């Protein structure tokens, strides 16, 4: 059970990370990154580090994403090819 969960989660992490890298739309990239952070939170929770997981959820996925979004708003949304 645990192994299956792990395998799914880890696959998801890699998939999201690669998606962040590939996304041309910066907004999309930031959103996917937020998803990535949340996935990571789950992994850590599962690994027995709940406090870390909560911090990551709040800061990594929350604050960082907000900051990125503000920045995108003030700069540009598109990555030039």
């Amino acid at each position, binding site marked *: 059970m645990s192994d299956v969960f792990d395998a799914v989660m*880890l696959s998801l992490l890699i998939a999201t*990370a690669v998606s962040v*890298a590939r996304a041309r739309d910066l907004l999309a990239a930031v959103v996917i990154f937020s998803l990535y952070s949340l996935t990571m939170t789950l992994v850590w929770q599962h690994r*027995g*580090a*709940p*406090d*870390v997981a909560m911090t990551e959820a709040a800061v*990594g996925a929350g604050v960082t994403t907000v900051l990125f979004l503000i920045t995108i708003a003030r700069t540009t949304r598109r990555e030039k090819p």
Partner: protein
Amino acid sequence: MLLFGLDLDYVLVVVLFCVGLYMLVSKSNLLKKLLGLNVMETAVFAFIVTSGMIEGGDPPILVAGTAAPYASPIPQAMVLTGIVVAVSVTAVALALIVQIHAHFGTIEVDELKELP
């Protein structure tokens, strides 16, 4: 969980780290670079959490009745600090990116480099 004799967690960390590094190094967009940096950071955090984990241990929260072994609290404290630092760095970087965009109208390194 072991994969081909390697702890899967470490494989993950390395893969994520590499993805982040790839973004940092080869993306031209500053925001993408910064995202890459963040990915790298999480990878390192993941490593620390993993390495600090003792198989079968409980979270290091003192609850009556539970007994050792705990997962060591120190790596988690490190990660917490690390996360804060990472956010600070990200914030500073984003501020700088905003400034750059305000000044040059672009956040693409390729274009910035061509500026005089």
